[in-house]
């Protein structure tokens, strides 16, 4: 099976461990992810904040590139997915002139939903050789993958399930909680640290209150925020995993310590204690 892959800028920097784990998971699942050769930034928050037109055009260029390849487009980054979907919706409604040839009929998947399709879950189930028994996790989706529903197409936006299904498929014990899609503050911390810290800290504390030992995320920025907030935390910490890291761990066990080096909250002690490394 072949798909087009749009990594997004984070996967080249802050979230390079996410990138490595995605490659490993796709490889084990027999999915050939072809990176869009000339992909460019989707514009993120800055583009739509300052110029709504740029926020449509920048993702449209990537959509055009994906249509040339002709495969479904999968992106692991929450905001990239949101911006690409948004741009595509506007192209379909013909609400702006696209400088490139785009029909807007290609499929754009967010990676969690792509892997949570029934046949993919089944495939993952077959591959899991070392289920993550006894690892209590909460799944944190962040905003951009699920909202707004008219762009993302999520019908269960209040209680999304894709990450829960994937973490459960990896054998983890998934705890239900209320903060699945509460905003973590995103990049506002660069200018207003107080706001971002208050929002992120609440999520981290609520995760602990729910009885979680670790948090599972799919968004690079959520991971950074939740990881950094625990830097000076006293008391219990909750390592923040990308869901692909857990999947890979459940497929074959150990050999992934090098990814965990990138985490500020070291997950190795927890995983060792559970006998999962």
């Amino acid at each position, binding site marked *: 099976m072949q798909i087009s892959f749009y990594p997004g800028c984070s996967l080249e920097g802050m979230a390079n461990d996410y990138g490595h784990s995605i490659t490993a998971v796709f490889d084990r699942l027999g999915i050939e992810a072809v990176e869009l050769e*000339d992909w460019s930034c989707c514009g993120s928050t800055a*583009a739509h904040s300052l110029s709504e037109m740029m926020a449509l055009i920048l993702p449209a260029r990537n959509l055009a590139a994906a249509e040339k390849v002709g495969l479904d487009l999968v992106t692991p980054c929450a905001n990239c997915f949101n911006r690409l979907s948004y741009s595509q919706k506007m192209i379909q409604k013909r609400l702006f002139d696209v400088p490139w040839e785009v029909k807007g009929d290609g499929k754009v998947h967010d990676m969690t939903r792509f892997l949570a399709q029934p046949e993919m879950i089944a495939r993952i189930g077959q591959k899991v050789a070392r289920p993550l028994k006894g690892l209590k996790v909460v799944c944190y989706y962040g905003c951009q993958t699920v*909202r707004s529903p008219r762009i993302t197409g999520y019908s269960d936006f209040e209680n999304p399930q894709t990450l829960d299904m994937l973490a459960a498929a990896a054998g983890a014990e998934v705890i239900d909680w209320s903060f699945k899609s509460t905003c973590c503050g*995103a990049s506002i911390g660069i200018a207003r640290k107080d*706001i971002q810290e208050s929002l992120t800290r609440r999520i981290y504390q609520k995760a602990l209150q729910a009885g979680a030992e670790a948090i599972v995320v799919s968004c690079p920025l959520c991971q950074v925020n939740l990881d950094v907030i625990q830097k000076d935390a006293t008391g219990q910490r909750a390592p923040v995993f990308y869901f692909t890291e857990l999947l890979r761990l459940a497929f074959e066990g150990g050999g992934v310590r090098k990814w965990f080096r*990138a985490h500020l909250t070291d997950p190795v002690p927890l995983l060792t204690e559970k006998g999962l490394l």
Partner: protein
Amino acid sequence: MSGTHCKKERKLIGDRGDYFLNRIQGETGENISACYQCERCTNACPVAHYMDIKPHQVIRHIQMGWREDLMASSTIWICLSCEMCTTYCPNEVGVAETINHLRNMAAHSSITPKEKHLAVFHETFLKELQRFGRVNEFWLMNAFNLKPGILKEKIASGLLTEEILLGLTLWKKGRLHLLPRRSKAIREIKEVYRRQRGGIV
């Protein structure tokens, strides 16, 4: 409506009153008139308590034509675009999209943004995107800090030291790439910038 706006009247001429309401409705495609001030957006908003004009008040301000207050508010910059308000509005008013549109208008006006750092950060991001076609966190933060006034304020508040230490930790962890990667489509990106924004950011 509470606070200082109690005695203000609806503005009726020029870029105000119905004109401003109609303009926003036309430009965003949102039905602003449908708002009946149930405050569900404000209750859903995770950062409403940091805003000077709350989300439901923003909609009311538009209906009343109080444009300058909106342009000078912190609200338009604080908004995270997390889409809670839009999602929960019973009348399907796109509150987040509307606030974003106001932010666009403010960015193209001569009004000094109330949250200067946020505005400058967005601007820096777009400039970095124009340079490489992709955005590298390390270069982005450096470019942002070198913008007029930012470094001085950060040194004074002690934020810079904190940031450098965090940056160092992240670099040791292998999460910062010191060399930016360029998109192969950089010429197309530059062309788009030239046509859309006259080459300037």
